[in-house]
């Protein structure tokens, strides 16, 4: 018997123009959805800015206490830029707080997703890119403009860094979406995703580089972490690219590593989604 679901059933002839139109329409919808939460956006940007001050002062005190010109490759201006762009980037990649899919699985609404003619992963991804675009305009800019008013700031010295940072940020958004999708998709099997969600929240904060630059850790921890887990590629990589802790060659390698992780994780999302659809029991009556 043939299974016909949104992801299993495939069109015989690809219609690229229509696919692109659908994808951009979904992106636009994601952008509009988040642009309606205006007050929450203001509150979020304010909170990111306060945490920018807190983290920046602590890291600058670390630099002062170390008594050397740089700590783990960062001078004070690089540390400050790392913190302030990090606070802006936090809402763009959206490490935390996305439970849309898990909620829909629990309530059974997910069945409506499966009836739609667009693959589930693609659809959520398009919406998430729209969300990230909105966040880049409203959540990235306030802390990035506030930081330089009170702290030293590092401007990239090489022109190539700027496009590389943009590419790295886009890859981080794609990758973070994939990771969040996988965490949410555990709900297909567990229904209650609290456990995986807590693990993700704790792990991603500290191991992606939000609490401190990962290079503060010894090499035998950082190198395997970077190569074998997607976490540093979510957050640390775009920031390290921006503040030029590495020469151009190494920057390119880090971004290439991100790209590999994006492919791996998105493929995994696809596989997990297929497997889930084959065993899905819809909740509710």
């Amino acid at each position, binding site marked *: 018997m043939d299974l016909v679901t949104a992801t299993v059933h495939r069109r015989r002839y690809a219609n690229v123009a229509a696919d692109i139109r659908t994808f951009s329409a979904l992106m636009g919808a994601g952008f509009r959805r988040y642009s309606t939460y205006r*007050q929450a956006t203001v509150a979020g940007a*304010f909170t990111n800015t306060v945490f920018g001050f807190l983290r920046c002062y602590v890291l600058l005190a670390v630099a002062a206490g170390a008594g050397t010109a740089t700590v783990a490759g960062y001078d004070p201006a690089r540390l400050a830029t790392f913190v302030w762009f990090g606070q802006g980037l936090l809402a763009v990649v959206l490490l935390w707080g996305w439970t849309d899919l898990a909620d829909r699985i629990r309530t059974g609404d997910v069945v409506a997703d499966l009836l739609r003619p667009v693959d589930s992963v693609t659809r959520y991804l398009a919406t998430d890119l729209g969300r990230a675009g909105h966040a880049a305009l409203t959540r990235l800019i306030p802390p990035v403009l506030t930081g330089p008013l009170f702290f030293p700031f590092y401007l990239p010295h090489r022109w190539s860094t700027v496009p590389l940072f943009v590419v790295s940020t886009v890859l981080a958004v794609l990758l973070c979406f994939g990771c969040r999708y996988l965490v949410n998709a555990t709900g297909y099997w567990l229904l209650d995703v609290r456990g995986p969600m807590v693990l993700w929240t704790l792990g991603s904060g500290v191991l992606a580089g939000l609490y401190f630059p990962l290079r503060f850790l010894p090499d035998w921890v950082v190198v395997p972490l970077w190569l074998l887990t997607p976490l540093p590629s979510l957050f640390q990589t775009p920031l390290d690219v921006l503040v030029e802790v590495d020469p151009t060659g190494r920057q390119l390698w880090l971004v290439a590593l991100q790209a590999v992780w994006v492919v791996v994780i998105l493929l995994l999302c696809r596989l997990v989604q297929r497997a889930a659809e084959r065993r899905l029991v819809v909740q509710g009556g």
Partner: protein
Amino acid sequence: MAEPGALRAYWALLRGQARSQTSYRLSFGIDLVSNVGATALDVFTVFVLFGVTSELGGLDLREALVVTGLTACAFATGDMLVGNIERITLYVRTGRFDAVLVRPLGALPQLVLLDLPLHKLSRAGFGTAVYVVALAAADIAWTPARVLLAIVAPAAAVVFFGAVFVVTASVAFWWTESGEFGNAFTYGGRDFTSYPISVYSGWFRNAFAYGLGFAFVSYYPALALLGRPDPIGLPGWVGWVAPLVALPATALAALVWRLGVRHYTSTGS
């Protein structure tokens, strides 16, 4: 308010919560374990930072851990007891706060007891353990007065954090969509007080440390316990009276809460 009938009702609320939360044993167990995580990471971060520096704001690792431990202990306990008042936004937005108001019990204790997160007991226990170990590891010249301060300071800090939770939650009465706004002061306050305030400077330090009173939560009591002078220049007795900051904080929280409840108008649907 504290007549025996009301006390019995509160006790019944608490017992009901305990029963319902522990009925899913595995879930409760996972929550107990995972809740230690956040506080453990805060402490871990301090160790990582001291991996690249030998002093932070004039304190060495052992001394800084007294500050971090005091905050970890007090914040985790305050968060367990009062932290879920954050959910007030939900009650106000949906109008469910009406149901709380019509019952013949205080609104604040009801909300606190209605979803008291017992699984956060583990985090409070872990925070207290960090504080005790930090006290033992730091080179403290113990006197009876210091023993008393070591006990009173975290208790006062619990009250202070509780007051911060109540004030930031009350914002929801005026600004329903305040979202993450309160986090800047609750979790922000935790982060601020986890480090010696000598690492901060300028108007930001003045605002958080003295304007909002966070300096007196763990930094000044820790200095008094360690017997160290304040590099910022406040006299030595400040650390001994610092726990008193909990009193004005509580008074302010009570005032803001009452104004908020009075300001509350239902959703009208």
